[in-house]
């Protein structure tokens, strides 16, 4: 029963932007008291009611995989991190609103995660430059979250918000700006909570209810290719997990 309802969402971003606090807030509805550096990957689970309030309501477990580290890490760290990028159904990109560089690094983060996902042989398909078309046909839904919203002075708010609006356009993703130490931002009924819920619904839909044959078949083929060429690599455990 647990494996059927599995939905995996990655939480990516630079070191120190607040991913662990965000994940704690999303899953425990509490503020994280003592944030410390994430070594490797920490997972937490959120129970989400798909299509809440309608007759088709169903409960899913959403796994939030919070992967630690920075984009400029050593290649040994990157290749170890890549282990966590398998069979990802959604990505939450987190950046620090007080630090422009963390927003710029999000392009590289998304490339790192998506490249690993779409080509299981491990070959990088882009040359590292940002390519908008890649995001247009991207089967994995993205969500952009900006943290430390409370630390921006009133005067700079509009400038920061315009910048993040451009960012969300580039990623073709919704954006949420919040402060991870204040649960008020994600209280039920706020627009942020609605956007979050919509994102999770989209992820679940793409994973379980999509009728679009091409991306599924493509990943199916990749999976079999994997089994034939690299039988030892246990990346795609069973093809049935795709459906």
């Amino acid at each position, binding site marked *: 029963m647990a494996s059927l309802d599995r939905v995996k969402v990655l939480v990516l971003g630079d070191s120190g932007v607040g991913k662990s606090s965000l994940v704690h807030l999303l899953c425990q509805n509490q503020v994280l008291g003592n944030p410390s550096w994430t070594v490797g990957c920490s997972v937490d689970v*959120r*129970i989400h009611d798909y299509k809440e309030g309608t007759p088709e309501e169903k409960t899913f*477990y959403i796994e939030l995989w919070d992967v630690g580290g920075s984009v400029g890490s050593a*290649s040994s760290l990157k290749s170890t991190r890549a*282990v966590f990028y398998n069979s990802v159904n959604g990505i939450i990109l987190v950046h620090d609103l007080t*630090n422009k560089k963390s927003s710029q690094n999000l392009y590289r983060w998304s490339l790192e995660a998506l490249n690993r996902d779409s080509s299981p042989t491990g070959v990088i398909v882009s040359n590292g430059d940002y390519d908008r078309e890649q995001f247009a046909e991207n089967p994995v839904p993205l969500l952009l979250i900006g943290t430390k919203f409370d630390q921006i002075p009133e005067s700079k708010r509009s400038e920061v918000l315009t910048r993040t609006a451009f960012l969300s356009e580039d990623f073709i993703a919704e954006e949420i700006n919040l402060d991870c130490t204040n649960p008020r931002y994600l209280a039920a009924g706020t627009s942020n909570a609605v956007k979050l819920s919509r994102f999770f619904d989209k992820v679940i839909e793409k994973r379980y209810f999509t009728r679009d044959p091409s991306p599924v078949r493509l990943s199916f083929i990749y999976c079999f290719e994997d089994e034939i060429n690299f039988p030892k690599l246990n990346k795609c455990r069973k093809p049935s997990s795709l459906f």
Partner: protein
Amino acid sequence: MSFLVDSVIMFTSQVLFFGFGWLFFMRQLFKDYEVRQYVVQVVFSVTFAFSCTMFELIIFEILGALSSSSRYFHWKLNLYVILLVLIFVVPFYIGYFVVSNIRLLQRQRLLFACMVWFTFMYFFWKLGDPFPILSPKHGILSIEQLISRVGVIGVTLMALLSGFGAVNCPYTYMSYFLRNVTDGDILALERRLLQTMDMIVSKKKRIAMTRRQMYQRGEDQNKQTGFWGMIKSVTSTQSGSENLSLIQQEVDALEELSRQLFLETVDLQSTKERIEYSKTFQGKYFNFLGYFFSIYCVWKIFMATINIVFDRVGKTDPVTRGIEITVNYLGIQFDVKFWSQHISFILVGIIIVTSIRGLLITLTKFFYAISSSKSSNVIVLVLAQIMGMYFVSSVLLMRMSMPLEYRSIVTEVLGELQFNFYHRWFDVIFLVSALSSILFLYLAHKQAPEKHMAL
């Protein structure tokens, strides 16, 4: 007139160094952070600029460029400025930024920063007591007091870094020490890591579901009032929360295990990359260099021990000694004066460039490893302080590598310090640092394969 020209030359070179320090700060150190306090960047670049100017003055001394009086003037000026920066400006700003990070003391920032600075000055002064670094004829407020203390700290740092570097360099270069890692090892470890993550996920799902059920039952519970309702609520929540805390403990243990596995996997991956690198041409070249450096390291440790045991301080520098040997024993006649100047210029130049480059690389690595967005300012300033002290003491120690005629300016400018003491101190700390690094690396190397056996 010539003084003006010389000053202009010095000033332009200082501006160039300042620009280089600024770029280094922006491009390398603060690659992932936004510079919000430009003061930090300015202070760092100023420290870098004045340290490099000192090296430049040594080179000018050897080459005989600029007139001797203007050289002397610029030496003194540079020294005063750098001491001012290292003792007053940088520690004050370090205290200021540390205090700014602590929320409680936000209001009285300046006051607390001054207090921190006074504490620093107190300990800085006390540092001079156990060491015989001054001759008694210097007064309390002379420049030699400050230089001697800065020199002690800097020489300690230099010796520590040098000792560790001398041992670590052959260890990393030589492929003899590389453990054998196969792809299968890495895959097995990755599989274990993913299995652990899956176990963590399933346990967390149970916790989440139990909590949700408790919450829902809690709502239903509120409707049940009366005696029986209260008893029921006590018994059910107790078993629920006990269960939860048990599972939570299991999860904590599994998370610790996953962290360990992750770190081991990273270690194996980096070893595998190093093995692949060692098979390339560059890798073979470095491997060969590693053997060479290990011999050099053993020789240096041996020399340091001899120096300490026999209380010997070298009187002549390597350049003059080398020339003496070639002239006397090998019978090659050449113009001593001419060649000694050029050779010492090259030697000193190489020493300067490698020490600057080595220090900047070490500082960058250190900065990446320990900085976070909150503490980046403080750490950069601490690094600037270390850099300044390092460069001042390397000037002090470099005196030994220069022939007599060039040493005089350094002796004149720095005053009558007990230079022999600094060399002795360097040898002691170098020996201690090298031996403890050997011990440390040996233990680390031993421990790693045992961990793999346990898998």
